């Protein structure tokens, strides 16, 4: 339809005459056109071309160019290659020596730092010794984020050279007995606490560009059992997350017991632990009760063992014990991972129910949660009150042991190191460092992956939100590294601390990398653009081009004729 509309310029000629003429006589040439029609035709073609060039071309350029925000690719690459930050962990130790002379304190401090500074394996921790300024008891609150406070009780009953040390449970304080006065002994005690931590940190860093090369060589000397234990811990812990959802479920095989005093039990055992762990993550707790919970059809079910009089559950059945199809365990509630703790009360005819080989009733499911079986009526359980009404509710005393177990399982699922076993505060601090490191590493690798992606795919759009997220991520990862070096591990009012910054950096980098609007044109090769443009613009363009060419040629010819004629 298009061709005839623009090109009709009075080009009609009388072709009928050709049939009537005798052969041999040439076809009559069409009469020359009036100047006016020529001009009109030229103007029409020109008007079409003006619209195409002045409106169409800018429109095409404007709508089909991909917007690529500029990203600081070199900085991102530096981080990915481990060049941007030399990862070291500050470990300030405060020395409290009540009753000692000043010079002796200073000398001890100097010897200690010399000894600890020449530490062999590890060397990731930067030890700094801060001798206590004042002698008075009780201990003044710590300044400068002290990682460990060492208290020497050398002035205790004299004559008793006790080579003992114990840790204060809730604080990061090491009390050394009166027999330990030399720098060497003190250094050994400190190393006992810190070496597992250094190994764990080194394990986290191994294989990444951040691991210092001299350390890699030393890694070989590390004992293999630490490596395997660290591997095992890695396999069972959840991914570091800012929020964990704890879900406590009671599944009953029959219809009793139908309630449990879970709130009291949680308040007694789980709430203190959750409070202590609040510096690492937030926890939400939900509970539920499900009656008539049956086994999954895929497992064999318990078998009765005559010898012990117990129902045994085979090891292979443990993985299928949690009947995910019928038991309502939600996999995730919003952001953050869900840790499920399942308490199962078997039916009276299947009681007591134990695991086959070990005879235990509790096991941990890696990266999922824990399962405990509560046998109420079996001979192994102590006699509880057997009033009829008590059978319908599990009292707090029934739940004692189970909740302790769950609390312990929670600590291992979070990844809390098991040493030093005396002090929860030290373990939490160790976990903070490990978490911050892990998040920092994952952020760096994400940024590196993003920069490689941007480089490799030049035709994907990069919206401004990605640039903003990358900037945020870089800022926070920088702060995280500085905080690690300065020893600011946990969150204070004025700054986020290493863990907070690392978390923020990790979230921002994931947001930037997984931006959905970037993916739209990834699989759009340039050849496909031909298939998009040609079907519509081809037929539209051909007559325009032909008409333009024809008119320009005739214009050129007429100009040449005029030039020749004059």
């Amino acid at each position, binding site marked *: 339809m298009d061709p*005839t*509309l623009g090109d009709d310029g009075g080009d009609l000629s*009388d072709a009928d005459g050709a049939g009537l003429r005798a052969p041999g006589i040439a076809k009559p040439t069409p009469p020359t056109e009036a100047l006016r029609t020529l001009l009109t035709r030229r103007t029409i073609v020109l008007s079409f071309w003006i*619209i195409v060039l002045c409106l169409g071309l800018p429109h095409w350029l404007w709508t089909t160019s991909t917007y690529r925000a500029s990203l600081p690719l070199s900085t991102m690459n530096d981080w990915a290659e481990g060049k941007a930050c030399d990862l070291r962990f500050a470990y300030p130790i405060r020395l409290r020596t009540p009753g000692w002379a000043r010079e002796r304190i200073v000398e001890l401090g100097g010897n200690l730092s010399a000894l600890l500074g020449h530490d062999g394996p590890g060397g990731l921790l930067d030890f700094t010794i801060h001798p206590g300024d004042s002698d008075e008891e009780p201990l003044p609150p710590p300044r400068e984020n002290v990682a460990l406070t060492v208290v020497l009780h050398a002035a205790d009953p004299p004559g008793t050279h006790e080579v003992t040390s114990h840790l204060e449970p809730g604080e990061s304080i090491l009390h050394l007995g009166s027999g330990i006065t030399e720098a060497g002994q003190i250094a050994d005690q400190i190393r006992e606490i810190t070496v597992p931590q250094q190994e764990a940190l080194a394990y986290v860093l191994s294989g990444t560009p951040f691991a210092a090369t001299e350390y890699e060589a030393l890694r070989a000397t590390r004992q293999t059992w630490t490596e395997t234990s660290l591997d095992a811990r890695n396999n069972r812990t959840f991914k570091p997350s800012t929020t964990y959802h704890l879900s406590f479920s009671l599944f009953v095989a029959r219809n009793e017991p139908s309630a449990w005093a879970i709130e009291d039990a949680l308040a007694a055992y789980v709430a203190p632990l959750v409070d202590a762990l609040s510096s690492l993550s937030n926890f939400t707790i939900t509970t539920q009760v499900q009656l008539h919970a049956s086994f999954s059809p895929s497992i064999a079910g318990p078998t009765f063992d005559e010898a012990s009089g117990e129902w045994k559950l085979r090891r292979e059945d443990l993985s299928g014990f949690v009947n995910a199809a019928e038991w309502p365990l939600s996999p995730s509630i919003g952001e953050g991972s869900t840790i499920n703790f399942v308490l199962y009360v078997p039916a009276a005819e299947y009681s007591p129910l134990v695991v086959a080989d070990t005879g235990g009733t509790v096991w941990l499911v890696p990266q999922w949660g824990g399962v405990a079986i509560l046998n109420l009526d079996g001979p192994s359980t102590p006699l509880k009150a057997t009033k009829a009404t008590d059978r319908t509710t599990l009292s707090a005393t029934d739940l004692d042991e189970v909740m302790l177990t769950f609390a312990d399982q929670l600590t291992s699922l979070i990844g809390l190191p098991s040493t030093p076993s005396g002090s929860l505060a030290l373990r939490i601090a160790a976990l903070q460092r490990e978490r911050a490191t892990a998040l920092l590493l994952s952020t760096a690798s994400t940024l590196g992956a993003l920069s490689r992606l941007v480089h490799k795919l030049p035709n994907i759009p990069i919206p401004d939100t990605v640039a903003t997220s990358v900037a945020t991520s870089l800022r926070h990862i920088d702060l995280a590294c500085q905080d690690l070096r300065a020893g600011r591990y946990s969150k204070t009012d004025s700054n986020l601390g290493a863990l907070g910054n690392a978390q923020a950096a990790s979230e921002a980098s994931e947001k930037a990398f997984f931006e959905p609007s970037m993916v739209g044109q990834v699989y759009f090769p340039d050849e496909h653009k031909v298939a998009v443009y040609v079907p519509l613009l081809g037929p539209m363009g051909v007559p325009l081009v032909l008409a333009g060419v024809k008119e320009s040629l005739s214009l050129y010819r007429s100009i040449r004729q005029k030039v020749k004629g004059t």
Partner: protein
Amino acid sequence: MEALTKVYRDQPKTVLFTAAAAIRILAVLLFPALPDILTLRAELSTPVNSFKRLQEGLFLYERGLDPYDGGIFHQAPLLLPLFALLPSPSLWLGRLVSILLYTGLDLLTADCLYHIAESGVAHTSRLYTSPRKDRAWTSLSVAAVHLLNPFTIMTCLARPTSVFTTLFTILGISHACQARATTAAFAVAIASHTSLHPVMLLPPIGLLCYDRMCAQSADESNTSKPNGAVPGSMNNKVAVDLRLQPKPLRFGLQFAATFLGAEAFLFGLSRLILPSWRFIPSIYMTLLELPDLTPNAGLWWYFFIEMFDAFRSFFLGVFWLHMLSYSVPFCLRFQKQPLAAVVLMMGIIAVFEPYANAGDAGAWLSCLCLLGHLFEPTLLYSTLLGPAFHHLWLYAGSGNANFFYAITLVWSLALLILLTDTVYAALRDEWEAERPEGKGKEIRQM
């Protein structure tokens, strides 16, 4: 009986108009469900002119809310006070009153067409007289075609608001034929306010108006003419004082300025009755960005359902530019037959507009009869039957989007064939004026 025949002979126009009104009212009285059925048909109601959506906007407007809040109402705000006066169409009375209103609009449109035909602009202009002038249709036939056209009757019963656009467009043409530039510009402004396409008719209508103004000023300078010949006819062969004729550039700027001023006035008036300026993006951005892809009788929706997001805005621009690009060349080529330029541009719009519907096409077919002198009879009948036949198909089969779109393509094809044949006929007419010996012979384009 004799009295009836006498009335028919004396007052043919009244009889025709009464008959047309009677058909519409009888249709609504005998088939009470028919208007609502037709309102739901996709070929007649599109997202930008549907009567149902008007009711939605009216509901919100009457309760003091922004009618464009719901996101489905995309029509001119000045229609809301008008329709707020009518009773609700869910009642029998309301339905009848709305049909009466639309019947009135149809009659007004037919009246304008009558006057356009009367003015003889179709075949005679300041620079040109058609050799086929005596074959021109009578004004009454033109009005009859419009009123009795099945598309027009169905559009009247379906009550889309594009009837207002059609009315004001044809009113604008009619005033342009009478060389009243200001009112013509104002009418086109109202038409563009309700829907964006009539803006593209501004150059052809301006050309027509200018043509008539020149003819009128030439006629005024020859007041000594005794006969009642059509003004501006070449038969006078009287020297025309070119200095007295209006200058084209000045006229063009005045016309455009009147148009813009009228638009601004309408925007201001609309803003007074509404709580916000939301109506501007709601009406015009809907046409430019096509967010609503409800299937209709047009060509666009199918393309943009399957279009990649990255290319969507590019192709929207291409489609609009394509439609726009015909406006100026038509004016350039058909300088001598400005009404042909207007009607052909209307045809382009009816086929290529974003939310095409049968009502606009029907109005175009009626306007085409103004150029009836161009048609060979066989050409006309076959092409008029074609769309009618396809129209039956449209009702019979809408099983798959592809089926529907295929029928829509055939419909557009039929309209385009009609359009190109009209272009050919108009050009042939001009050529024969220059070369009378070529009449009736076969021709070939070089």
